[in-house]
């Protein structure tokens, strides 16, 4: 009884190893390393500001050329201008209403206060995020900025931009 069993075991060893043997086998999904990093044209130093629009998977930045006047106020004004044809062609939209009225902007440390003269309570979550991210990245690269939005109905402290 003992001998055949040993023999079978000896024969099994290569048999166990063989199935994993030949050719290139499929694999699961493997994550390796960082994502690719690119720079935009024009960048912030050359008057580019990021305006956040709604894409298929959340808000995305598009770069507007301010021709040298890259300020936070300008960025927020360009956001209120809404998406352009090229943005729409790529499926980007904005949930902010068009607003061409007066706008106040106050910078206080890491806090940006924006004052618009219209109701802001009905701004959707995406709209608030668009505003928060646009204001934050126009102000500072890190985006660690608190944005306070004051309308003529209420004052909202917007959630920080996640990026």
């Amino acid at each position, binding site marked *: 009884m003992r001998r055949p069993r040993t023999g079978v075991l*000896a024969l099994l*060893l*290569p048999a166990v*190893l*063989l199935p*994993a*043997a*030949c*050719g*290139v*086998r*499929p*694999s*699961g*999904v*493997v*994550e*390796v*390393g*960082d*994502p*690719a*990093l*690119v*720079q*935009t*044209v024009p960048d912030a130093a050359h008057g580019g500001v*990021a305006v956040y*629009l709604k*894409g*298929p*998977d*959340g808000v*995305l*930045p*598009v*770069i507007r050329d301010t021709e040298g006047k890259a300020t936070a106020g300008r960025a927020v004004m360009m956001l209120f201008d809404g998406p352009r044809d*090229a*943005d729409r*062609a*790529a*499926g*980007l939209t904005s949930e902010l209403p068009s607003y061409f009225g007066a706008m106040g902007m106050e910078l206080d440390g890491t806090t940006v206060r924006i004052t618009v003269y219209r109701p802001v309570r009905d701004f959707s979550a995406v709209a608030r995020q668009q505003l928060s991210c646009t204001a934050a*990245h126009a102000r500072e*690269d*890190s*985006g660690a900025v608190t944005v306070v939005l004051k309308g003529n109905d209420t004052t909202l402290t917007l959630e920080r931009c996640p*990026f």
Partner: protein
Amino acid sequence: MIRALKRLGRIGLRARLVAAFLLVAVIAAGTTATLIYQEARSAILQQAQDTAVDQLREQIGAQKVELPMTRDSLRQLSLTVGRQGKPHPWYVYAEYGTLRASNVSQPTSALLSEDLRRRAGANPHGTFQRVVKDGKPWLTMGMPVRLGKEGMQPTQPSGIMVYAVMPLNAEEDTVQAMVNAARDGALPALAIALVPALLAARSVLRPVRDLRRAASSMGKGRLDTRIEVKGSDELADLAWTFNESARELERSVEELQKAEARARRFAADVSHELRTPLAGMLAVTEVLDEDADRLDPDTAAAVRLVSAETGKLATLVDDLMEISRFDAKAAALNLDEVDVAETIAKTLQRRRWEEEVVVGLPDGIRAMLDPRRFDIVVANLVGNALRHGAAPVRVTLRTEELPEGPRVVTEVHDSGPGLAPDVLPHIFDRFFKADAARTRSVGSGLGLAITLENVRLHGGTVRAANHPDGGAVFTVVLPLRPPVAEPLPGEPLSAEPVS
């Protein structure tokens, strides 16, 4: 025949050893090759994958993008990245918002799995997956693109996702080449393994063969057979033990032979020593016998008894001396060409048995015999038949052609009750008495033993049996011309009933 079949069905030691060696070689080579192969394959693939993912990341990082991307700029990006793909051109599928563009005609690829898309979209990491489609291996990669500079945190999503697909043909060829190399290397390795296998088998088999030869040689009686002890392994131990046993056996046999020789010499010496006084006694008893009539009856009876017993003693001593000569191999055959029928007739006549014996003796059978010994043989058998069997006793003579050569067959057949079956095997033993009640018979108890020795000396056989019609039959078969060489001792002598 059966042995040959058995040998065929049995796997020999050599075959087993060689098979074991080859099995070990196969297992060792197979296991090693498989492990090396697996390691090498994963190393080859790992390098190809890492290089490809790194390159994809680098190629994309070298680009400057305008956001939002347009269909044209997206296609431009995929073309630029795809062109620089190494070591093989890549199929690049770039996605932005709802835009899809690629460097080939289809904007997306079926090779990209849902899982890859989900994982690449969910986590800011490069991802890859090997897929096999229609037997061809592909490397698919997903690379999310983010805005930022190397070493600066945090980064922002750009909304651009680049997928690249690269054939793994070259890697598969390399892997296949390793398999081929392993296979091509394994066969010669097995062939080489055969050499030590055969050598090892030989080194084991040679001592075994020597042992077998030595054992069979000892079985044939050559007790001085020894084996050369080589090395210090188990087989050498076995050979040493064999030699020791053989030495012991040889010594024991030698001692036994010496003891037997001593016993025989003693019997011979005793009988020889007894002969001289007996000769004197015989002479005296003859004189006393003649004068017995003149003695008073009681003394006369005593004298006759002494005379008769002395005569028997003389016969016994003569027979003992005859047997001793056979034991000492000192009995010589004095051959003479004689007419067998005439010789038998003379024997009967000399002992005055013509009236009691019926003869069937054809004339003209001539054989080379020792007339004196043949006379003893016939006289013993006929005397036995007359004493223990019953008249009529028939003596017949004939010749037979046997495969070994022509034979002269003499049969002595009595009309008595025959021999008991338990007596038959011992009938030719020395001092064997068929009739246990008659311990004091006329014979010495050596008659048939001497008959046997004489027949043997002629190279013939003697057989005792019961005739189907009743009565004992003794058959003596002698060659017409005895072989020149001395007959082998212990030639088979059968003593079995005919019926």
